């Protein structure tokens, strides 16, 4: 017994729990636990009436902890934390026990065993709550300034939209001119506007803004601070270091086009180009296509070069680069528009002109493009014979029949690969996915946020995207950064690591284990101990197994709490 006054609510979930678990027995067993002074069964604990009843009980019995045994914590943790708060109870003194997804619904065939498990689970919830501590959200101020890294189309668009919100922007670009990959490209799908024109228009607008500062030839070299108040240092082309204070960081560092290895589908032979090289050639050539002084009468495109590769061999380019099928179908229509007599052969694995871009594929087909399908196991070959290029493919749509093409140009439809940004990754402490691109917190629900609060990833820095998708993520990051910076403050979750100064003897193991730089060595009396910077800590607990003294733990998951939960689960049920 700890002298706590804990209340327990057992939810029937309208039969979802009580049909398979004896909720009354669970309540009665909970009532026998030492610190429990109040128990009740509710038909729907999340209903307004039930919450009101629980609030009344918390107030009347002056409860200092509450355990709700209902559905998965994913569904109603926020609901019941808010309920606790309304009752005047610290929301972190509330524990949810998963009695539905992980008990009644999983064990519908054995009511006695499910009830026994339910009793163990509620005991563990009580044990955890008995050792809980009131915690306060950390409120920190935010500075209405943003750093945008990369002045390609996503970075430029982010900067303008942040500026629209009244947020001052420092836009840094490693190259000596803005525009990234898109500037080099000719007409873009779906509306045939030139990449260069799109970029020049955005750059002109950026220059017109008083609250956007563009730094060219400039790289980030250092980042410290926390969400809402980052301190960054950037290196100007002169070598000077410039210090900037910003509240949020948008990472728009883009992609690298895949460069085939020498000999990969004939790469290196005269007349074998990559997709970006063909785009540049088209952008630079007015009128019908000419390559090295010779008119181009036929083109063979080989799709999926560098994308959708087998996972073995260290490369993780298993992903589809998304834009290439649409871009190539579009290019075919551009080439046809310049000279309808050009023969175009598309050697594809699968055509992924998804969504609205299906129309581009239709247009390419109608323009006379021929599509031939190859398989991953039987790749087309590209060689030079008798002074010309020869492409051979076993066409799956012709039952594997060999087809020989003698084109003037072979275009390798190369995908996107992540940029080599090791210094930036180290400075920002951002996680990288197995494919090498920056990784978001949640692919569907938090697509531009990273685990580092206040740092957003947009455009192709996060993974292959076309221009429209890149801009969409750029604007998504602006809405997130705007919400963060315009409010003026942010509340941070207090479930972070904490050091017991009486146990810590500073060995530095936790600091080494922490990927977020959240642990500092500080003086404590006449010795040194570890201290957690709560604003930087992500609460994942990487430091916990590293500590030889069990002196560091995550709030809500302390050694004492987990151990007592294990004891409670292990205890026999009478």
């Amino acid at each position: 017994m700890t002298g706590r006054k804990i209340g327990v609510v057992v939810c029937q979930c309208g039969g979802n729990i009580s049909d398979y678990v004896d909720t009354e027995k669970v309540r009665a067993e909970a009532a026998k636990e030492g610190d429990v002074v109040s128990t009740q069964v509710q038909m729907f604990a999340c209903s307004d009436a039930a919450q009101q009843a629980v609030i009344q009980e918390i107030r009347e019995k002056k409860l200092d902890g509450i355990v709700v045994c209902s559905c998965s914590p994913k569904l109603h943790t926020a609901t019941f934390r808010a309920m606790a708060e309304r009752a005047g109870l610290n929301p972190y003194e509330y524990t949810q026990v998963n009695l539905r997804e992980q008990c009644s619904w999983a064990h519908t065939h054995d009511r006695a065993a499910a009830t026994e498990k339910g009793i163990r689970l509620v005991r563990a919830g009580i044990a955890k709550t008995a050792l809980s501590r009131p915690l306060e959200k950390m409120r920190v101020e935010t500075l209405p300034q943003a750093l945008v890294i990369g002045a390609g189309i996503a970075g430029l668009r982010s900067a303008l939209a942040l500026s629209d919100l009244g947020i001052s922007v420092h836009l840094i670009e490693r190259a000596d001119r803005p525009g990234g990959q898109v500037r080099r490209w000719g007409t873009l799908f779906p509306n045939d506007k030139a990449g260069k024109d799109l970029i020049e228009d955005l750059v002109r607008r950026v220059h017109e803004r008083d609250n956007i500062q563009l730094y060219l030839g400039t790289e980030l070299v250092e980042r410290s601070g926390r969400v809402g108040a980052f301190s960054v240092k950037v290196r100007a082309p002169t070598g000077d270091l410039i210090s900037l204070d910003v509240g949020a960081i948008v990472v728009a560092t883009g992609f690298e086009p895949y460069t085939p290895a020498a000999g990969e589908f004939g790469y290196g032979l005269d007349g074998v180009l990559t997709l970006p090289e063909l785009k540049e050639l088209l952008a630079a050539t007015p009128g019908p296509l000419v390559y090295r002084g010779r008119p181009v009468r036929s083109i063979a495109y080989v799709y999926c070069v560098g994308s959708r590769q087998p996972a073995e061999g260290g490369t993780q380019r298993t992903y589809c680069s998304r834009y290439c099928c649409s871009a190539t179908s579009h290019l075919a229509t551009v080439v046809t528009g310049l000279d309808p007599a050009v023969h175009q052969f598309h050697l594809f694995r699968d055509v992924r002109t998804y969504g609205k871009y299906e129309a581009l594929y239709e247009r390419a087909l109608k323009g006379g493009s021929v599509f031939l399908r190859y398989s991953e196991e039987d790749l087309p070959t590209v060689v030079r014979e008798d002074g010309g290029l020869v492409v051979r493919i076993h066409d799956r749509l012709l039952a594997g029949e060999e087809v020989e093409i003698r084109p003037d140009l072979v275009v390798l439809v190369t995908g996107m690969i992540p940029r080599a940004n090791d210094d930036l990754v180290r400075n920002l402490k951002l996680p990288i996915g197995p494919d090498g691109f920056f990784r978001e917190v949640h692919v569907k629900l938090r697509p531009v946020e990273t685990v580092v609060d206040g740092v957003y990833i947009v455009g192709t820095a996060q993974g292959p995207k076309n221009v429209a998708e890149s801009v969409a993520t750029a604007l998504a990051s602006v809405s997130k950064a705007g919400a963060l910076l315009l409010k003026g403050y942010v509340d941070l979750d207090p479930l972070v690591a904490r050091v017991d100064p009486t146990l810590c003897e500073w060995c530095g193991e936790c600091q080494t284990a922490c990927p977020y730089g959240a642990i500092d060595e500080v003086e404590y009396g006449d010795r040194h101990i570890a201290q957690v910077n709560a604003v930087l800590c992500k609460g994942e607990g990487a430091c916990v197994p590293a500590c030889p003294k069990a002196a560091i733990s995550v709030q809500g998951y302390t050694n004492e709490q987990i151990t007592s939960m294990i004891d409670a689960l292990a205890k026999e049920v009478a």
Partner: protein
Amino acid sequence: MATAETRSPRILVFSTNAISDMGIDLAGSAHMAYSPTVQVIAVPCSGGINPAWIAHAVKSGFEGVFVAADGPECALLPDCVARTAKVVERAQEILKADGLDPQRVKMAAICSVCAEPFVNHMKQFGRSLAELPMATAGA
């Protein structure tokens, strides 16, 4: 008396709030049955599990501990798999030192929709635990 075929060993599962606990929830939502002797404690990340907790569970009467790891999808630790493997390895060392079978600890990545793999793991792990001689250390 229950045989290895019918006995359901008690298993403690460490799941993770953001990923594997959701996969385990999904198994329940789909009414995919596994033994009620399987109980779950959810933590923020499998790379933050203290090996001592695992050892404590085995010494407290759980016949096995299953770490439902975040796997390569962990958003918090890019090297979560390696870190979790290290945690499991250290827990196994503690068990060995106490004369307990290190096979009582098992780890596998369980994704947020890995309902069926979770249930299969529980069945297989349960079967292999049932074949081990009963734990004696600390008893």
